């Protein structure tokens, strides 16, 4: 990167299954106002905006960013929307980083928002997600994201002895972590048995193994090194950025080696290289990562190099991903306990790591964090992935 990129402000709304009292521009505005307040900034400090809004169906509008930009008072400034499935937030932050690092703009805001429950029911909501499946062969066969991730988990079970009880432990951890997060949608004391007894959706994923479906918004404000001095808090730096894509067809992958999510692996290695991270277990103090399904998080420990191939399940069983463990993963509750307002998710993850580094994470604070990762992914079986290394 030509210029160092700092996060100078973060803000979000509470996340809920339904904000029936708020439209998506209102949710966006509330998160922007919170982020400006956090930065000690005024809206006139913002030079450009990147909108992180995933699915036109959720906003009931084919160009939702149009209707937010003007209402935020950003008329006659640049604004652009990024949409990349579950990686929407990651790619939106990446787009904003390029605007800052290239010297194009001094201060750029990323606004992530989603209003998922405006779709009348969960079946139409999921159907609108499946509209992203390969339209030539796989959409007609009923391809779904849950099916693609379920297959990866089954492979992991067969080869490494991961069990449905292990998957349930991730749910217990993340919904438990959410109890320390006042903005979380699903703080819950659940047991392994509760998860195992919940209804099966796509083998081996029960309903409680699934990520949430949330409404809410998150905003972060990025600035170059010089501009960062204008704002009230110490800057937190984005020192590593990696992005990678794979085939989004479920039956057409040439996965190299042992990685089940090669795009995730590639994005993590690129981010580590940029940030100079050589030993992830000691260098990465906290992670906010894309636990779209419980078993996925177990695989992600391996993809991020927090442990070796096939060791993810031991990493979990040994409590290393827990609060108080060596590398706490998803202290916010992640996508299973915290929120999954898709466009907002990748932005919120960065905001949460920033709070951890600042020591502002309240009851979910991990001690002595100076470096963390945020990662989001989309498409079938992590076909798109963006990883950030964030440092104080």
């Amino acid at each position: 990167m030509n210029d160092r990129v700092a996060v100078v402000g973060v803000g979000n709304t509470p996340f809920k299954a339904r904000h029936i009292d708020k439209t998506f521009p209102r949710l966006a505005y509330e998160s922007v106002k919170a982020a400006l307040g956090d930065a000690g900034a005024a809206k006139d400090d913002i030079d450009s905006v990147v909108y992180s809004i995933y699915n036109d169906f959720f906003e009931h509008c084919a160009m939702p960013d149009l209707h937010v930009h003007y209402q935020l008072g950003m008329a006659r400034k640049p604004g652009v929307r990024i949409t990349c499935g579950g990686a929407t937030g990651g790619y939106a932050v990446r787009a904003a980083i390029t605007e800052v690092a290239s010297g194009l703009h001094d201060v750029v805001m990323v606004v992530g928002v989603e209003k998922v429950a405006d779709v009348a029911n969960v079946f139409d909501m999921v159907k609108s997600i499946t509209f992203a499946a390969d339209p030539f062969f796989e959409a007609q066969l009923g391809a779904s994201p849950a099916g693609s991730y379920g297959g990866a988990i089954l492979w992991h079970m067969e080869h490494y002895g991961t069990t449905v009880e292990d998957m349930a432990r991730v749910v217990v951890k993340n919904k438990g972590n959410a109890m320390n997060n006042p903005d979380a949608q699903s703080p819950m004391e659940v047991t392994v048995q509760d998860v195992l007894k919940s209804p099966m959706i796509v083998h081996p994923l029960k309903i409680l193994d699934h990520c949430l479906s949330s409404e809410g918004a998150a905003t972060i404000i990025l600035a170059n090194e010089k501009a960062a001095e204008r704002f009230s808090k110490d800057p937190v730096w984005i020192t590593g950025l990696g992005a990678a894509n794979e085939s989004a067809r479920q039956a057409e992958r040439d996965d190299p080696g042992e990685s089940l999510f090669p795009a995730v692996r590639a994005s993590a290695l690129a981010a580590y290289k940029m940030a100079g991270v050589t030993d992830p277990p000691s260098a990465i103090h906290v992670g906010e990562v894309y636990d779209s399904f419980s078993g996925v998080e177990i695989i992600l420990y391996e993809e991020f190099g927090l442990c070796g191939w096939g060791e993810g399940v031991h990493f979990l069983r040994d409590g290393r991903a827990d609060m108080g463990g060596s590398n706490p993963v998803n202290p916010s509750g992640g996508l299973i306990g915290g929120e999954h307002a898709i466009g907002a998710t990748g932005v919120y993850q960065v905001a949460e790591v920033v709070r951890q580094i600042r020591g502002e994470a309240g009851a979910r604070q991990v001690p002595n964090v100076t470096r963390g990762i945020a990662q989001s992914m989309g498409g079938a079986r992590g076909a798109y992935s963006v990883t950030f290394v964030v440092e104080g």
Partner: protein
Amino acid sequence: MADDRDPRFVPIKVQDGFVVMPDRWKVDFWASMGELSRFFIEIKENARLMGMKCPRCGSVYFWPRSWCHDCYVDTKWVEMSGKGKVTVFGQVEVSLNDIRKRCRSSRGACTWRGPATRRLSE
């Protein structure tokens, strides 16, 4: 779709030697009008036209907006006079299917007046 048949029950076609696949994306909504709900309720129940006013700078937003995009503070509901001036209008001669269907019951063509004045000083 050019016709109203359910595409799920329409066989694929071969046209000039190429396969064309029927499909339809249908998604139902209950889209929340959220903080703007009172605008619609006041019209229905009291025949009142409402805008929203910034307590700081006095700007009145119509269409209503629950915050002022200059001052970044919440606005308050105010009743509009119900009078306005049409500055320019155009008549839509060809309408999209959905609009045409909705309008058939009332009139033959849609007339949209506008552009509406978005922000009025009092």
